[in-house]
């Protein structure tokens, strides 16, 4: 699924959204949601290679590998949060979008706490 197909899918999707929008907007939202989902599904297969590379070559000593897992979790959460928030913004519900983004930030922060703790330990080790 190269970039040309993705761009064509996006443009065709937006064209269909516009044709349907003025008559009944809920189908326009459905079409834009499906277009986004289709593009994301097409892109998501590329992540496998990136994560294999990360897992294999990022085992530098003093940097244990479960930070990579946390980073991947955070990436996934950001991915889904951004998808949902943009759909709500498209539909004009900016308040719902900001709530979704707030929830995503809180969840990401809660996942990042162990990394922050280990950072503080290393800093204390250097200073102490």
């Amino acid at each position: 699924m190269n970039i040309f197909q993705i761009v064509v899918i996006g443009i065709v999707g937006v064209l269909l959204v516009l044709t349907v929008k003025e008559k009944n907007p809920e189908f326009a939202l459905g079409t834009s949601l499906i277009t986004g989902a289709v593009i994301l599904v097409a892109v998501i297969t590329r992540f496998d290679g990136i994560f294999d590379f990360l897992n294999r070559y990022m085992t530098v000593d003093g940097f244990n590998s479960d930070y990579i897992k946390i980073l991947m979790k955070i990436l996934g959460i950001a991915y889904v949060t951004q998808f949902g928030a943009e759909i709500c913004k498209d539909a004009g519900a900016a308040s719902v979008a900001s709530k979704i983004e707030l929830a995503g930030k809180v969840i990401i922060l809660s996942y990042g706490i162990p990394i922050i703790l280990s950072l503080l330990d290393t800093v204390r080790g250097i200073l102490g």
Partner: protein
Amino acid sequence: MEIDLIFKIASVGIIVAVLNTLLKNSNRDEQAMMVTIAGLIIVLMVIAKEISSLFSAVRNLFNL
């Protein structure tokens, strides 16, 4: 699988729009509302299936 999904949703939208104007002109507004709701349900089912496949792909890729 991808592009015809978008066409399916858009075609349901267009058909519902045409049927709505048709039914409204022959002053059967409640049937027009029922057609809109039926179309919406169809679209929602297709979207739910696609979104669930997307989210399960994200889940087992980022092992959330």
